[in-house]
């Protein structure tokens, strides 16, 4: 099948230092990751003819965006045919899909994609009074007015509401849900850049302080400072890149038909996943048994559970049983999940980490945490409450 996905490949991977309160300029992290990705692809700055990022420069929550497309274009003096950024995309990895389209349409040969967060440092600057508390006491607008006045100030609250409803409908237990953070922590122990690597027991998980019922501390991901970058190249150029190959795209799912809302849709699940999953499967002949691993958005443990079901790895309401004991999702299990530790333990790379880990694993470059059996495929998802996307990656 001649589809746009087959026109591009990931040829370069870049990553800055990752950590809590690095107290570094987020632009410096961004440049570290971008130059790393260009170098990893065996390209030079002048080869880059496109730039795409999520979400770009935004006001209101600076910690979630450390650099915009313009910043990078100017800092590296890029000579580009096309550039783009935005918050309103199919998940954070929607920015990679945009880059794929720019390549498939012939606008670009090599698009630099990046995602920078500096939430840990930004929070520290707020606490120490070096930046003002966001908003400055002004009134709420832009959708926040429906939740913030009630102290429903965090996605921890909004997603916890869905989790409470799911538990009520399907009888999921915290012991079952906890298999996701426990699995991710085991995987993070082997990931050099992971923020949290110390062993975590079920008892630790259950006894941790409660953030917003049913979520305890370990159901919530780790805000950090990080930048991750990719080079999305035309597939014909992959042989000329450093590895002589890239990681291919088999299918993308970016569809949505649900309310773009935190409270008006199907409140048993994280919203905005159903149609993206259906679309991804509709664009491939591969089936569930062909998938060697999944890297599923885990801003909260429950997000990853939703993706497991919406992707059809288990039936509606069956994720608890699927997760029971954690063997299926282990690195050597039938469906390895979040093999770098995910956002729950490696850190909130905010979507880009799932594609990065998919590529590292498919390239066989994951070192100690390499999934056994020469994996050929991976699904990387992103979203987290906003409409999501699913990318099916394959070895070329």
């Amino acid at each position: 099948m001649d589809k746009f996905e087959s026109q591009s490949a990931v040829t370069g991977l870049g990553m800055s230092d990752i950590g809590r309160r690095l107290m570094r300029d987020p632009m410096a992290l961004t440049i570290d990751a971008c130059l790393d990705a260009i170098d990893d692809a065996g390209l030079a700055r002048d080869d880059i003819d496109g730039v795409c990022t999520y979400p770009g420069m935004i006001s209101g929550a600076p910690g979630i965006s450390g650099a915009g497309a313009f910043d990078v274009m100017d800092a590296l003096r890029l000579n580009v045919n096309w550039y783009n950024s935005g918050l309103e995309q199919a998940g954070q990895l929607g920015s990679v899909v945009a880059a794929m389209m720019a390549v498939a349409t012939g606008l670009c040969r090599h698009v630099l994609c990046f995602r920078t967060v500096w939430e840990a440092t930004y929070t520290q600057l707020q606490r120490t009074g070096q930046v003002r508390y966001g908003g400055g006491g002004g009134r709420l607008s832009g959708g926040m007015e429906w939740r913030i006045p009630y102290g429903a100030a965090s996605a921890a609250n909004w997603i916890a509401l869905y989790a409470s409803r799911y538990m009520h409908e399907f009888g999921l237990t915290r012991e079952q849900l906890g298999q996701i953070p426990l699995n991710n922590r085991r995987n993070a122990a082997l990931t050099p850049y992971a923020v949290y690597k110390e062993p975590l027991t079920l008892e630790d998980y259950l006894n941790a302080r409660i953030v917003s019922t049913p979520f305890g501390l370990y159901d919530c991901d780790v805000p950090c400072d990080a930048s991750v970058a990719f080079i999305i190249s035309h597939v014909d150029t992959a042989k000329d890149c450093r590895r002589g190959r890239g990681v291919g795209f088999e299918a993308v799912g970016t569809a949505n038909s649900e309310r773009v809302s935190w409270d008006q849709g199907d409140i048993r699940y994280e919203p905005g996943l159903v149609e993206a999953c259906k679309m991804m499967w509709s664009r491939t002949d591969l089936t569930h048994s062909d998938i060697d691993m999944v890297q599923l958005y885990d801003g909260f443990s429950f997000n990853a559970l939703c993706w497991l079901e919406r992707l059809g790895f288990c039936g509606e309401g069956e994720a608890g049983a699927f997760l029971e004991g954690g063997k299926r999702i282990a690195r050597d299990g039938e469906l390895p999940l979040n093999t770098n530790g995910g956002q729950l333990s490696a850190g909130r790379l905010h979507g880009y980490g799932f594609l990065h880990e998919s590529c590292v694993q498919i390239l066989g470059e994951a070192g100690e945490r390499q999934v056994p059996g020469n994996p050929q495929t991976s699904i990387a998802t992103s979203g987290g409450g906003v409409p999501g996307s699913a990318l099916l990656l394959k070895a070329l």
Partner: protein
Amino acid sequence: MSKTFKRPLPQLTDSNRFFWTSGEDGKLRFLRCDDCSNLIHPPAPVCDKCLSREQSVSEVSGRATLAAVTVNHQMWMPMIEPPYVIALVEIEEQPGVRLTTNIVECDEDDLAIGMPLEVTFEHYEDVYLPVFRPREGAVNASGR
């Protein structure tokens, strides 16, 4: 329930003022489509069911049921002290219409999805925040 000092409040606009000030007379109101009676929430200039542009502000009963609930233990904002109860409630007239809100006047142990609720309002400056409490005289899903 939390000891509340102050809240971050909505910016009132021509499209949302009716909602946030509705509680002045103790009533909850939504936009209702004049053509198909669909309640439109959040306020929008078009009905998401039939695309009619004709709409009116319409009073509802204030009765609702508890659809999802979380007890928040984390301090997110200094003016709202945890723990407090955040909920999604479904409006009796159209259960697909929900509000994110607080449950007040209810022990945490008595919270149960499906329990009947009724609106009450908390007044701050020019805003009447609709919050919900167990419905007087109703038997809830936990048999309370």
